[in-house]
């Protein structure tokens, strides 16, 4: 089953979710300013309540962003109808985990899953597999897109679930390198290809 303008609406959805995360951040600025009337408030329990509250506003949009990225990522592996069912199942499990545990567990689940899926996509892209399909042509662009998505998912996973891990900073730097190289590859494929002639 093929949906008309599927990619277009996916981009609209992603744009709206990003916009909403921006709105949450703006609310955070206003709320912080309101709480900061008392100069010592960050040394009280009110500060950790503020952090928890802000996280609770952000996390649902992060789940939606990951679902939206998820609809984008395995698109290269599955047909559209399978992909939508796959995403609906992931969202369902995330919601169930959130209800029976907490949102961090739900978010952690979806992040681990997306990290695995995107790692597979990256490996298949590197190996020039015919099984994955991309919107854009060109090996460098595909590599850039895969690295960027993996880096982003890895950074969010690291912030949400691995803050106390001894590998937190190491994973963080991997994420930064993936995102930076992914951005450069995606934005400047021709220039990158000219520097790496064998990969073009």
């Amino acid at each position, binding site marked *: 089953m093929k949906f008309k303008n599927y990619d*277009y609406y996916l*981009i609209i959805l*992603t*744009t709206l979710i*990003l*916009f909403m*995360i*921006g709105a949450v*951040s*703006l609310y*955070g*600025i206003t709320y*912080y*300013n309101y709480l*900061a*009337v*008392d*100069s010592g408030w*960050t*040394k009280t329990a009110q*500060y950790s309540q*503020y*952090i928890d509250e*802000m996280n609770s506003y952000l996390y649902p949009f992060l789940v939606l962003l990951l679902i939206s990225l998820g609809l984008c990522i395995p698109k290269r592996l599955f047909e559209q109808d399978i992909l939508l069912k796959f995403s609906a199942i992931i969202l369902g499990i995330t919601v169930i985990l959130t209800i029976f545990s907490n949102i961090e567990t739900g978010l952690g689940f979806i992040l681990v899953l997306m990290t695995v899926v995107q790692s597979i996509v990256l490996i298949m892209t590197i190996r020039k597999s015919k099984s994955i399909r991309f919107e854009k042509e060109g090996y460098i662009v595909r590599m850039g897109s895969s690295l960027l998505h993996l880096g982003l998912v890895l*950074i969010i996973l690291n912030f949400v679930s691995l803050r106390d891990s001894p590998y937190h*900073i190491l994973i*963080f*730097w991997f*994420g*930064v390198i993936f*995102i*930076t190289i992914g*951005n*450069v590859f995606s*934005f*400047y494929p021709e220039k990158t290809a000219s520097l790496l002639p064998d990969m073009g």
Partner: protein
Amino acid sequence: MGYTEYLQARDFLGMIGQPVITYILIISLFQGIFSILYLMRKDSKYFDYLIKCLYISTGLYFIGFFILAWFHIQIYNTVLIEYPAALRQMIPVENSRIAAPLWIESEKLYFWAMCASAFALTVKKRKDILAFIGIILSIFSLAVYFFSNPFKDPLPIVNSEITRWYAALSSGDMGIFQLAGTLYGRVTYYYNSTYMWTHPPMLFIAYASLIITFAACVYMLFEKDKLYDEIAYRYAKIGYILLTTGMLIGYPWAIEAWKDSAWWWDPKISGSIMMWVLYSAYLHSRIYVSKGKMWRTTAYLGILCFASLVFTYLLTYIVPGIHSVVQP
């Protein structure tokens, strides 16, 4: 070498730097006038004057920057903080020199304005966009001169720290232990940290590039020409790469330097997240810029992104927080 030499260097900076920034202001005002005249009359002669003014003001900005760099080298060479013997048991060094980055305190806006002027010269083939940017740069120069002049009372916080250090040293004040401890933290985690030498300049160069994206988006809205989207995108790419990586590399430093402080969801960090997601939204929306009225959404988003950028920059001065100069 010591405090006297430092003070002489500081006086010399003001003496030669103040005329430079005054000339920048005058030339930039002419630049603004020629920009307005060109936009109103579309006469190439005004554009030629505008280009000349832009070259001169950019050159002057760079001359001023080299003078500031010279002053920073003088701070490094003249000021030596020798820690008291009792403190040396707690810290790993015997003394410190201040390698102050070139984009702190009142130098921030100057650096941004200098980068913006340099970027503006790269769009000189697009007369309309450059004329619009010429007006923005004039406003920038006015703001630098009146609100963030690096040659009038240079580096006031660094200066007060150095002055207090030498005053305590000469008076034999016991408060020198506390002062030395504070200075050690400032030098290690702020002035001499790799983070301060990389994170802010990456962001300011990104901001400079994104001014052109903003100007092109404004034109796209009025002229309804796809060419402006291409210009906006060309500079958004540079800006977005620097913005993303520049923001991220601040994180390991924040963990180390602010480990006992409240910085998670700090207003400046929230503002930076807001700015980044809006630019991400802009880049997503422009994939379908040719579809229906999507060009309009993209243009509005580009303008909103720049508003969020300016707002995020100003947060340091208007909202309390760990990044801020204002306190409740």
